[in-house]
């Protein structure tokens, strides 16, 4: 069964450094998402992406964040200058289409630790 993959599984970085989290969505999917989950809290929507554009973003997704689909398979989340409070699990998701009948498929997550 096709699945969403994410790399790395765990990343440790120092405050102020840039990080890029990578995701490979399911191949025929057109809609892509990033979520984050701070330890012990609920999963929060960050951004959705379709047709090489951001479709919607939350208030969390400020100028420090950016997303890109650099080629036909990868979908990346970049944090320009990491802060301690960026430490969280980051989930990528994809879906074939929007609307009723199309579920999201989630990747296993990348645990980001900012020291």
């Amino acid at each position: 069964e096709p699945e969403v993959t994410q790399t790395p599984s765990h990343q440790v970085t120092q405050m102020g450094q840039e990080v890029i989290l990578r995701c490979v969505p399911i191949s025929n999917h057109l809609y892509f998402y990033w979520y984050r989950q701070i330890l012990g809290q609920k999963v929060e929507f960050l951004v959705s992406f379709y047709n090489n554009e951001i479709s919607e973003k939350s208030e969390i997704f400020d100028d420090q964040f950016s997303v890109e689909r650099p080629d036909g398979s990868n979908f990346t989340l970049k944090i320009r200058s990491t802060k301690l409070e960026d430490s969280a699990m980051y989930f990528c998701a994809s879906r074939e289409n929007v609307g009723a009948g199309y579920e999201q498929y989630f990747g296993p997550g990348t645990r980001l630790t900012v020291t």
Partner: protein
Amino acid sequence: GIQVEQSPPDLILQEGANSTLRCNFSDSVNNLQWFHQNPWGQLINLFYIPSGTKQNGRLSATTVATERYSLLYISSSQTTDSGVYFCAVEDDTGGFKTIFGAGTRLFVKA
């Protein structure tokens, strides 16, 4: 925006017991999914259930969209069912944003 409330927030069960987890949402939804977050943090997709009833082994789910709630049933619970159960909904205004509930933390005792 749409609000999602899950209850109970915490649940402790003896192995073999049954339980019902509830998800209430404040507006019409196009999609609803139930997830189990395992001890490694992975989100395991249990059900995609915007309406109706589905069953998968010891788990089943029912969504009554007109009354804005969904229920997840766990029968004959096992210790491996422990973890956090999340309900996630997507409103019907575009499909680009999914809102998660705060989750139900389940612990099943041997």
